[in-house]
């Protein structure tokens, strides 16, 4: 078990180095001189050259990479072109909001996706199964922005049940429990929109795992022992089918972060995705790269966690 975890940790070292290199390359490929914004006619070419030198822009690429990495591990992602804000500051401001949204969607995906998949599998080839399977396919197939717009249209604009965007009602100035309730009220629609695709994939995955497991010899053994259907399905089949589901804990993280870009922009949710969209519009490459690097690292950690979880739930790896 410890050996397995150590191996996984070791394997992720080259991956994390690769992530930083790829981020660095993309950043270097971005068009425009980082100093272009500061250029004003009164600065002479000599002065510009001096500041380039000072910023290390004339160093060989690998030296630049190590300097950049040195800053990054200290949490310094540089400053925005416009306004000279600290990028880390901007991100830190929004990170919690994105985490609230993605974490809710994450929980929703599994809390709803797993039971839907199990029910569909147990009721295989019945109307319930067909209905749930169809729902899951629609969930995978619907463009998330379209679903988001539909949800806002019906639940916010037509029915007026939920706010159409934002995270808090600024004018109300809530505090304490009222504030929490207000955030929750704003959270429900974007969390549903963000999780829909994931609910659908989790339930499809659970269903097919469950069907595979139900064909296993040990299920036949359990039946031969005269156990009740409930014990056969939940004790013998479900627990085995759940093991591979753990692997998509990790896989769903990049999916949710991608989705957050769109969901946050539709719902005006003040998170990293919305920051990213603004950054795209303003060509703030520094922000985009920082977001890339941070999410890639989070995804890597997520994968690592799900691999370790896998080892914990599967006794064959545990030993």
């Amino acid at each position: 078990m410890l050996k397995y975890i150590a191996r996984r940790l070791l394997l992720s070292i080259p991956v994390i180095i690769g992530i930083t290199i790829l981020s660095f390359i993309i950043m270097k490929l971005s068009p425009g001189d980082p100093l272009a914004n500061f250029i004003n006619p009164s600065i002479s070419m000599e002065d510009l050259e001096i500041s380039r030198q000072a910023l290390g822009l004339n160093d060989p690429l690998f030296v630049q990479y190590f300097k950049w990495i040195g800053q990054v591990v200290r949490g310094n992602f540089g400053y925005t072109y416009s306004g000279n804000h600290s990028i880390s500051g901007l991100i830190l401001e929004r990170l919690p909001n994105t985490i609230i949204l993605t974490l809710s969607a994450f929980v929703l995906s599994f809390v709803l996706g797993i039971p839907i998949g199990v029910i569909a599998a147990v009721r295989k080839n019945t109307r319930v199964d067909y209905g749930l399977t169809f729902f899951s396919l629609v969930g995978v197939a619907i463009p998330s922005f379209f679903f988001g717009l539909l949800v806002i249209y019906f639940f916010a604009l037509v029915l007026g049940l939920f706010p159409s965007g934002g995270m808090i009602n600024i004018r109300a100035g809530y505090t304490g429990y009222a504030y929490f309730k207000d955030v929750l009220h704003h959270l429900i629609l974007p969390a549903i929109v963000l999780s829909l695709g994931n609910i659908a994939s989790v339930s499809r995955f659970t269903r097919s795992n469950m069907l595979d497991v139900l064909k296993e010899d040990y299920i036949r053994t359990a039946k031969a022992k005269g156990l009740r259907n409930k014990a056969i399905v939940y004790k013998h089949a479900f627990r085995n089918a759940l093991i591979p589901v753990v692997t998509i804990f990790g896989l769903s993280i990049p999916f949710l972060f991608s989705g957050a870009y769109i969901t946050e922009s539709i719902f005006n949710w003040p998170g990293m995705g919305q920051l990213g969209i603004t950054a795209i519009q303003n060509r703030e490459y520094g922000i985009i790269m920082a977001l890339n690097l941070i999410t890639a690292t989070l995804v890597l950690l997520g994968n690592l966690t799900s691999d370790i979880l896998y080892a914990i739930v599967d006794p064959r790896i545990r030993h």
Partner: protein
Amino acid sequence: MKPSNTTPGSPLPSNKKPLLQVKDLSVKFRTEEGMFFAVEHISFDLEEQKTLAIVGESGSGKSVTSLAIMQLLAENGKITSGEIFIDDEDILKLSQRQVQHSILGKKISMIFQEPMTALNPILKVGEQIMETIIEHQGASRKEAYAIALDTLKQVGIPSPEQRIKQYPHELSGGMRQRVMIAMGLVTKPKIMIADEPTTALDVTIEAQILNLLENLKETYKTAILFVTHDLNVVADIADDVIVMYCGEIIEKGPVADIFETPRHPYTIGLLATMPSLDNDNDILPTIRGVVPNITKRPTGCYFHPRCDHAMPQCAQRSPAVFQVGQQAVKCFLYEQDALGVQDGPGVQDGPGAGEVNHG
């Protein structure tokens, strides 16, 4: 004795009431090309403390028969006719819930071929044994634990206190099969079905397991239905034998009689292919041809395309079952002299010698 149309009576006239009675059982399977019989008109009795072996090649329907009794057929399989009596109760007339509650694991249990895949990989072996006791005897976990431990000892597992806490993958193949047997025994059922329980094991372990089954049969007064393709195993363990071919019983009788004077040309061929110590032929004879696929069975007697004694009528209709001594044979060769006259192909001489191809 008159030939009955489909099935003979019990091969061994006996006063004992059979524990398990299968009457005219037929199972159909749905395939992409339609519905086909996997087994047809199977009838047999199993008595207390007896071992009945069902022998046949793969595709003969021997496993389907045992799974049908346990009502564990795959989704595309269906029992189309017949009765299965356990303690004078036709279990096919019971609801699924009743079968689970009062038959499976309680009156009848099953040991499967591959103990690795037949045991749940994520549950400790103790848990897998205990759950049957808890389910059927309403025992507390503590009681169940004690019984499970005791049963593990009975099946010869060393240091059961440690083994009971282990997962299947931590045990060797032989140990796993002992666990399977313990699982089947733990509620002391009167009937045990063993479906090729030693096929996945090597020869020394096989002998140990067979020995164990033999002893347990004595201790627990169990009847065993032993499904196998291995005639050596049959000779070791069985009292009576059923030979199956293409989903039908083609011969049945006491093991000594069948091995001494096999009647059906297929049985004769099968016995001739059996490797034995006193047979110094290096090359084992084989029966020519192959077992036909379930979807492409011939007309008449299913064996006739491979049979050296085939007569014109064999291709036209299915033979009835004839009683010859203690044996029941489904073959036209025994139509005239069904009683006692040994005119059929013998194993030592007569036409039986030409029954097999060497090579």
